[in-house]
Each structure stands twice: as structure tokens, then as C-alpha cells.
């Protein structure tokens, strides 16, 4: 079992020694159960670090911010940034390395093994507790979570409230790390595409009905995009104007920005937006599930990415986020790639 004290010890050490400029980790929130991202700059603040099943965030998203901030600074601090990652998050780092977006030497990875469990699904927990407020959720030695409510502590098998992605996880262990907490243990897992079957087994029209209902809910807050560590483009297909503008950018270039998607949250436009996201994440999504978690409208976005992940695996035997040296899914091919769909 991962001991948070170990993490703190290492965090304190690297901050004291000046090895990193700050550490991105988790701390307790002020408004309830869930943790929040923490940006720890001094050894004294290390005490705020926590590790429990509410540490759901994929913090690698903040490496994108870090890169942007650094690019703006005149004399940037060149020391690496410490970052706490779970298995899934670590694969995001691999993809960012693969795409040369970050350099290995700019990060110091504090890897945490999820061992045999993972992180919780807040909505599942709420249901489990019938709307009662949980004060605290902790790991225990076995595959249980210990939940503290006003009524006291209780044990719940982790599987019952684990995030869906954790149930289908195949990287409970950080594939990249500078220091590791917890152990590399095998875990019994569901079929990694099990949740997809629910939708795949529907008839075509039912599938359409499902997705239309879901995507019609989209309010285009772009939280899915904003939270995704892979959505680091300077300009997105849905943006209304050119962001990447310099003094040389001509009026024509700005005028010619293609409106692939209108801002209106209508069925057709929402679909284009989510199609583009799914296709652009094909072979890149590492299933941290953040897009789905943050969606205020509860759109099961993970299915779209999961579907692409499944096809990448089944058609092309491709898995994202394990090898920083392999080419991206769509920037390579095999002679024997399937073509039975082609006339």
C-alpha cells in the first residue's frame, strides 16, 4: 500500500535540494470530499500533499500550462517540475514525450502504483451513500475503500465505487517514473472494452438515438477539451478566431480561418466537435477518463475515445502511451492493415 508519508518525504527532499521548481500533486479541497490539484513550491507546503482514492485528476494536463508559461518567461527556471502520476497519467506523459511536447529532463515523475484498486467515481459513491456526504475516503490493505461519513467509518469493496476506467485499466503501474511508490502488482481486470459492449450491442438506430440524446446535451463548455492533456493545440477547430497570431499574420489568414463548426450547440455542430476530438485522440487517448468526469452534462465521452482505442487495438494492434519512440497511430501503417471495408 502506498504511504503518503513516503511521497511527502521524497517531495520534501527534492524541493529542499532544489531538484525541482515545484511539485504538482494532490491536496484536500475546501468544499468537500474530493482532492484538488496542488502546486507545491516550498518544503513546508509538502504537508498538504495527500494520496487517497479521490485523487482522480490527471495532473499531466498542467504540464501543458507549465510549457506555455515557460515559453512566455524571459528567464525561465530550467529546473524540472515534479509531478505525481498514476499509471494512466503516466501514459499521458509517454504520449507527450512521443509527440515531443515535453522533454524527459523537464519532469521529475513521482509515480504511484494503483496496485489492485484505483480511484473512485464520485457519482457512484454518492449513489452508494444515497446522497449522504462522505467526509473522507481512504485505501486499506485489502481491495476496500474506507469511507468516513458523519455516521462513522465503513468499508466498501473498491470495485463498487471505482471509476469505470479503473475497472478496465491495464496500466495500474506508472510506465515512466523517477521514483515509485507502491508495488507493481498484477490485478484481475475486466475485459478492457467491456463497457463499450453495452453500446456496440445496440442496433444502429438505437445507437444513433443514444448518441443524439447524449450529444444534444452538450453545452460546449469545452471542459472535456480543457481538461485533456492531449488537447494542447494552440488553436482548436471550435475556436472562433486565430489564436496563433503574430505581427506577420495577414488579415487574409485571419479571414480565411475555416469555420468547420459553428458555435451553436446544435446536434450537427456538437457531433462535428466530438468527432474531431475522438479522431484526434485516436491512438493518443490513454483513458484517464477526465473528459467524462468533468462533463457537467454527464455525456459519456469516454465511450467515443474508448471505441477508437478498441479499433486501434483490434485493427492495428496499437496501444497508446507505452512507448515514446513509436510513431503515432495514424503516422504509421502496416502492409497488412485491414482493408475489407474497401471496395
Amino acid at each position: 500500500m502506498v504511504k503518503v508519508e513516503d511521497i511527502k518525504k521524497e517531495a520534501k527532499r527534492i524541493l529542499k535540494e532544489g531538484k525541482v521548481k515545484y511539485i504538482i500533486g494532490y491536496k484536500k479541497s475546501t468544499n468537500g470530499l474530493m482532492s484538488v490539484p496542488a502546486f507545491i513550491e516550498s518544503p513546508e507546503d509538502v504537508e498538504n500533499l495527500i494520496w487517497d482514492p479521490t485523487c482522480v485528476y490527471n495532473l499531466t494536463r498542467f504540464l501543458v500550462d507549465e510549457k506555455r508559461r515557460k515559453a512566455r518567461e524571459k528567464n525561465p527556471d530550467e529546473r524540472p517540475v515534479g509531478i505525481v502520476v498514476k499509471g494512466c497519467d503516466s501514459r499521458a506523459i509517454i504520449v507527450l514525450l512521443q509527440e515531443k511536447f515535453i522533454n524527459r529532463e523537464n519532469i521529475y515523475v513521482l509515480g504511484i502504483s494503483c496496485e489492485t484498486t484505483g480511484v473512485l467515481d464520485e457519482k457512484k459513491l454518492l449513489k452508494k451513500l444515497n446522497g449522504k456526504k462522505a467526509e473522507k475516503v481512504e485505501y486499506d490493505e485489502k481491495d476496500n475503500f474506507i469511507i468516513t461519513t458523519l455516521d462513522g467509518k465503513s468499508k466498501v469493496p473498491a470495485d463498487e465505487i471505482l471509476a469505470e476506467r479503473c475497472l478496465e485499466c491495464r496500466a495500474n503501474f506508472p510506465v515512466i517514473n523517477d521514483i515509485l511508490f507502491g508495488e507493481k502488482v498484477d490485478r484481475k481486470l475486466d475485459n478492457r472494452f467491456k463497457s463499450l459492449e453495452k453500446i456496440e450491442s445496440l442496433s444502429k438506430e438505437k445507437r444513433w438515438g443514444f448518441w443524439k440524446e447524449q450529444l444534444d446535451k452538450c453545452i460546449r463548455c469545452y471542459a472535456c477539451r480543457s481538461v485533456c492533456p492531449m488537447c494542447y493545440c494552440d488553436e482548436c477547430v471550435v475556436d472562433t478566431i486565430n489564436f496563433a497570431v503574430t505581427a506577420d499574420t495577414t488579415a487574409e489568414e485571419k479571414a480565411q480561418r475555416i469555420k468547420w463548426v459553428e458555435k451553436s450547440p446544435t446536434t450537427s455542430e456538437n457531433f462535428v466537435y466530438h468527432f474531431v476530438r475522438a479522431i484526434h485522440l485516436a491512438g493518443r487517448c490513454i483513458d484517464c477518463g477526465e473528459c467524462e468526469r468533468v462533463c457537467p452534462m454527464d455525456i459519456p465521452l469516454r465511450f467515443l475515445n474508448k471505441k477508437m482505442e478498441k479499433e486501434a487495438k483490434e485493427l492495428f494492434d496499437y496501444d497508446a502511451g507505452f512507448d515514446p519512440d513509436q510513431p503515432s497511430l495514424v503516422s504509421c501503417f502496416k502492409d497488412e492493415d485491414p482493408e475489407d471495408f474497401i471496395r
Partner: protein
Amino acid sequence: MTDEFEPRIVAFLCKWCSSAGSDLAGVSRMEYPSNVLPITVMCSGSVSPLYIFSAFNKGADGVLVSGCHPGDCHYLKGNYYARRRIALVKKLLEFIGLEPQRFQMSWVSAAEGKKYTQVIKDFVKEIKPLGPQTKLRRNQ
């Protein structure tokens, strides 16, 4: 007869094989339905998924991407990348419930005027019973 549904199909044809193949169909005076609007691109590998989404968004009843046979690509391997990309797009579109017939890919070489004709005939025939594509189409 005039009330019959006439699908609008956008076909992205690679310049060297499929577009040339369609030219051959013309030279050979093969007849096929006029529902397909050809857009000649340099290579099937240059067909971005956005083109496909956009065509459906703008009301295409069907979209065809056609390139050179594997190994025959004028640009050596563009069609292999296309094959991969298009496979993913196709799976995605089918996953959300678009009729699979509406999005197709074909290999048509410069010598296959007949095949091009057949591909178009089949495509139109398969789409007609489905009626207009309204799922992804922008409401005007």
C-alpha cells in the same frame, strides 16, 4: 419519377488513380448516376477526417474516398495512411449510428473505369433506400 430521392454524394478522388479512372469511365462512355460530385485531391492520404465530417455536416447523403490500390500510390504510400485513417473514421461514424453505406472507400486505379462506374452505381443504389441523411446534417 421526379419525386425519387436523389442522394448527393461527395467523392474525394485521388488525382492519379481514381480521378484518372473516372476519366477513363468517361472516355469509355460508361454511364452512371449523376449523384456523385467529384472533388479531386492529390492523394487519398490527403483526405482529412474533417473533410468527411464537414461533408456530412453540410448535408451530403454519402461520402466516398477513393484512392490507388495498395502499392500503386503515386506518392508511394499515401493510400496506406488513408486506409488507416479512413478505417477509424468509418468505425467512429458507424459507432454513433450512421448507416455504414453512407461512408465508403474504394480503390480505383487509372485503368479501372469500369470499376469506378460500378462503385458509383452500387453506392447510389445502396443509399437510395436510406433516404436523405439527416442525422449529421446542419439544420438550415
